């Protein structure tokens, strides 16, 4: 379906679409006020689950990806029970530790082929698949946003104690989003493995997390459109700036993040920032009445 796109552009599109899935898997946690950094870990779990099942056990690729989703959700829910008792910076640290344990574990056991990773994974994932999956995810995100579920998530993000006083089951919402986030990250990992044919633990280190957090914070957590646009924007920047792929890349990511956090602490699509922009561009009424 997307064969008319030149190979390189198609590659860029694929990479961006997988990044979008990862960013959304992080976003839904933040929309519930969960500062979780476990995404990279779940992505690694998903990638390895599917890669191993398909290469070693000869499972068909779609089944491998489904298994990855299942394992990701199960792990997220079982880790969520202890980890979600933490709040704020403690949750961030706890979930980061979890992600690191997963990735370091993968690098140090035999059946995953350690730090060398796995190569020769069957690649069946096409741009068409990715477009369809991302479309479904974004549609669901929009449905959530427009429903009372989205309102409840926002309430939890803004003030969880008050939200509870209004009958919102904060813990259930957080468990559900943690599970869904884990499942989505795992799916992204599996899709990536079946796109590139290789997987290794270093793909899922702290660096990936920094990139995803940058996309999300620059875009803003209020609506999915912000992080999606930020992901696309950063990809375009990355392709057109000469220092992409060099050490300067991290520098410009960091600078953009700092500047955005100063100008628009809630992201570029936040209501606060757009209203401020509107005020600046609107002609100020004459104050001398």
């Amino acid at each position, binding site marked *: 379906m997307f064969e008319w796109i030149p190979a390189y552009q198609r590659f860029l599109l694929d990479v961006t679409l997988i990044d979008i899935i990862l960013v959304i898997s992080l976003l839904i946690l933040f929309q519930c006020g969960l500062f979780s950094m476990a995404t990279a870990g779940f992505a690694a779990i998903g990638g390895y689950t599917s890669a191993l099942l398909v290469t070693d056990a000869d499972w068909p690729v779609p089944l491998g990806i489904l298994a990855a989703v299942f394992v990701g959700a199960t792990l997220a829910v079982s880790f969520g029970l202890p980890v979600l008792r933490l709040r704020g910076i403690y949750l961030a640290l706890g979930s980061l530790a979890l992600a690191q344990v997963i990735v370091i574990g993968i690098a140090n056991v035999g059946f995953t082929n350690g730090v060398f990773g796995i190569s020769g994974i069957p690649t069946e994932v096409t741009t068409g698949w990715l477009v369809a999956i991302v479309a479904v995810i974004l549609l*669901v995100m929009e*449905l*959530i946003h427009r*429903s*009372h*579920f989205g*309102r*409840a998530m*926002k*309430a939890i993000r*803004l*003030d969880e*104690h*008050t*939200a*509870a*006083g*209004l*009958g*919102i*089951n*904060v*813990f259930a919402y957080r468990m559900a989003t943690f599970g869904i986030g884990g499942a989505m990250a795992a799916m992204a990992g599996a899709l990536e493995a079946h796109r590139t044919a290789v997987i290794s633990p270093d793909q899922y280190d702290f660096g990936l997390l920094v990139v995803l957090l940058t996309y999300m914070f620059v875009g803003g957590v209020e609506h999915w459109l912000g992080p999606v646009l930020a992901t696309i924007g950063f990809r375009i920047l990355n392709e057109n700036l000469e220092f992409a792929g060099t050490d300067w890349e991290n520098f410009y990511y960091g600078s953009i993040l700092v500047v955005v956090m100063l100008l628009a602490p809630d992201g570029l699509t936040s*209501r*606060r920032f757009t209203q401020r922009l509107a005020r600046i561009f609107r002609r100020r009424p004459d104050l001398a009445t």
Partner: protein
Amino acid sequence: MTVPTELLQCEGVGRRFGSVTAVDDVTLGVRSGEVLGLIGPNGAGKTTLVNLMSAYLSPTSGEIKFAGESIAGCKPHELARRGIARTYQNVCLFEQSTVLDNVLTGRHLGFQGGLWQLGRKRHREEARERQLAVELIELLGLAEHMNEDVSAMSYGLRRRVEIARALAIEPQLLLLDEPTAGMTRTESDEVGRLIGELRAGGMTVLLIDHNVRLVSETCDRVAVLDWGRVIAIDEPAEVWADERVREAYLGTGESG
């Protein structure tokens, strides 16, 4: 005359924080349909008691029953579901959201549709809930502020938004923690009138307030808390005449 049924009962309720006893052996009933005032000097344990009644805290001794059933082990959201709504002493609104958004969030329990319910049915549900929220906003006299950001509003208005949001869960029992603090006289008179209307509509209200006039005018009974204990509970006039109440508020001539 029939014995009034008690909607909320505290039986020997106590709450300690370390070595401090904030609420000490409180036995108190809120009767169905009444407005019960809860007064006491600062630090008497009023807010702690409200936190216990809304399951934000659990008692270290004694038991609280709502509609005849114990609330032990209940989470705040379960209690909201059972029909207890509250406001907070330090006004807890969802900031950077509109008045309508705040009140609509309070309608959370009114929504039944799942995520997959689409089209007309979803639209109808949303419209119905929105309408209810708008009615509450009008009831609180906030119609002209409906789409304003609550963060930019005055203290008195914010308190009213909070009351509207609490009413949005359609509670049987409304716990108001100093609803008129920071309000002008006219504004607090409005709140008094509103409480009267709610009472006429059959709601049970627990009102914490320092405004003696408001409490006298709106409450059927008043309970006085001092050092975590109920020192008097009676009709307002009786309570003001009570020697122990005068002592708690004004002190005695003796030192010590």
